[in-house]
């Protein structure tokens, strides 16, 4: 037997192929033995793609574009979903008491402050306090108004309030008229530096600090203040509030305490924190249709991606039809041809999908300083790759049908 080590083991061939098809195939090839499955079919798939570099680059760009499109839509959905519950998730409360029938966090009716004292009397409740959330108008220093949501909380307990403070101190909010806003909304609110004086609901206020990355699903910026400042700035009645939040004793049964609170406070709804977050998220994402539209966009992105990838894979297959005919004439099993075409799909998905995911993560990182967050967290990488793989495999169905429709006799008629 000759001493020729199979050519497919050369580094130039393997540098991408081995990366894709993994060490098992690589070892098979290095040994120079393999069943008709992965080895030569994988090599043929890779070479069919790489043979025409211009087309391959176009293919990869198409897949990258499709992946970025899908990732952006999913990222927007996650960003929206995240922003609907961002305040709830960043409080340390175990339970929320709201006016009966409230659908979401942002829009509620007032409840009497008396409910706060009643809540404190329920066994199992370790701590309860009022939280004020109120839409009002912000007058920019250079004129013009913006709708904002004032959030007033007890600064002494740390149950709620601003986080990610990047300029100023939490203690600064104790000053009269003091508020904090997020950097994301500086332009929108006409503020450039700490110390800027503004008007909220016709009352004077001063910006004493900035947070970073606290977005609002309603697009009305959050304005953080102490509870009393918020009450003053929003013009809320002194004996009213719109949330009572609190913590439970460590050994208390959350469901039992919730039921007890609901019984003693019949004019309110009582939720555990996770329940309230879910209720708010479901309201904004599904009841209003906002989330559905983003989901539909994601599906459309997927369809566009399938069409792009199908087109390029189909063109590659058509280019190589005579070779598939030759394989058929030689007696190659259908599975071998499937593997060549599916191999092309897997290679395309990998070499186009991973850069596409990387680009998406960079764009998502860049969106951190904008009002519309795009979230592409690390856990999304595997699902995105799975979607890309499924998209490429789905796209290769037309190619498989085309390759299988070839009459092997055609090779004698060329």
């Amino acid at each position, binding site marked *: 037997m*000759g001493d020729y080590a*199979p050519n497919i083991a050369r580094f130039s061939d393997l540098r991408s192929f081995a990366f894709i098809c993994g060490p098992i195939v690589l070892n098979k090839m290095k040994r120079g033995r393999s069943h008709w499955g992965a080895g030569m079919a994988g090599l043929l798939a890779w070479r069919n793609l790489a043979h025409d570099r211009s087309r391959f680059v176009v293919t990869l760009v198409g897949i990258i574009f499709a992946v970025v499109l899908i990732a952006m839509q999913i990222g927007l959905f996650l960003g929206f979903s995240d922003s609907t519950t961002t305040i709830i998730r960043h409080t340390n409360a175990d339970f929320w008491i709201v006016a009966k029938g409230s659908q979401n966090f942002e829009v509620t009716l007032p409840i009497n402050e008396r409910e706060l004292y009643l809540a404190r009397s329920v066994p199992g409740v370790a701590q309860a306090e009022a939280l004020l959330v109120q839409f009002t108008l912000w007058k920019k220093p250079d004129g013009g108004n913006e709708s904002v949501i004032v959030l007033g909380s007890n600064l002494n307990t740390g149950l709620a309030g601003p986080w990610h403070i990047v300029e100023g101190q939490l203690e600064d909010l104790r000053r009269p008229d003091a508020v904090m806003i997020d950097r994301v909304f500086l332009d929108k609110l006409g503020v450039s530096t700490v110390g800027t004086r503004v008007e909220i609901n016709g009352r004077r206020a001063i910006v004493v600090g900035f947070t970073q990355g606290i977005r609002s699903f309603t697009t009305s910026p959050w304005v953080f203040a102490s509870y009393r400042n918020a009450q003053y700035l929003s013009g809320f009645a002194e004996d009213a509030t719109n949330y009572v939040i609190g913590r439970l004793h460590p050994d208390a049964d959350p469901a039992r305490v919730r039921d007890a609170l609901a019984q003693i406070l019949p004019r309110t709804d009582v939720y555990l924190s996770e329940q309230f977050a879910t209720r708010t998220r479901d309201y904004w994402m599904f009841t209003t249709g906002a989330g559905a539209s983003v989901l539909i966009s994601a599906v459309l992105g997927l369809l566009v991606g399938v069409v792009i990838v199908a087109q390029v894979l189909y063109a590659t297959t058509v280019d190589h039809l005579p070779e598939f005919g030759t*394989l058929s004439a030689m007696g190659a099993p259908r599975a071998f041809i499937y593997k060549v075409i599916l191999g092309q799909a897997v290679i395309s998905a990998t070499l186009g999908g991973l850069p596409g995911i990387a680009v998406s993560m960079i764009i998502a990182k860049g969106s951190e300083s904008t009002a519309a967050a795009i979230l592409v967290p690390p856990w999304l990488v595997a699902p995105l790759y799975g979607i890309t793989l499924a998209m490429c495999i789905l796209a290769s169905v037309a190619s498989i049908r085309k390759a299988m429709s070839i009459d092997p006799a055609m090779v004698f008629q060329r």
Partner: protein
Amino acid sequence: MTRPALETRDLSMVYGTGDTAVRALDAVDFQASAGEILALMGPSGSGKTTLLMLLGCLLHPTAGAVWVEGQPLAGLSNHALAQLRLRRMGFIFQSYNLFPALTAAENIQVALELKGRDLGEATELLDRVGLAGRLRNYPRQLSGGEKQRVAIARALAGDPPILLADEPTAALDSVTGRTVVKLLADLAHAQGRAVVVVTHDPRVGELADRVVRIEDGRLRP
């Protein structure tokens, strides 16, 4: 008595139906034996390629029967026919039909892998057709004669007893064509294969053990 490697009886092939029907073969009785090279000659459209495709299990005849090493093809599934082609036959095409993205050795390794053989045999096969130094060359880097010899080496992968060649010298100059035909003759004589060559090339006829002439779908004496 040894059975022929290939045999047909009353073999007919009609393309199309009704007014557009074309009778490509008409009641052909044909035999090719192991150890002989047989040239199938005739004018264009005479039916020689159709006969080759029927011998190669690539077409189903309209009437008549084909036997490969004594096994009748009638009733075999497409999968079984493909297996028969894979295990017992090698094909050589006029336009080589090499995979342009693969090197000479890799082209042969595809066939070796399909047949469950050691990929390292590619070296020996290329050496046998005088191309030991062209292992890593792509088809575009080979001359027409070299491409055809790579195609022959690929057809020899798995050591099939039957070789079917369609105009293997048509795209080659006379010297190269003669080399290829001598190689095919050697494969028949020295290695005991049945080699059927469809050709217009009289040089093939000169080197063949037998020439079968076909005209208007019928064999001529």
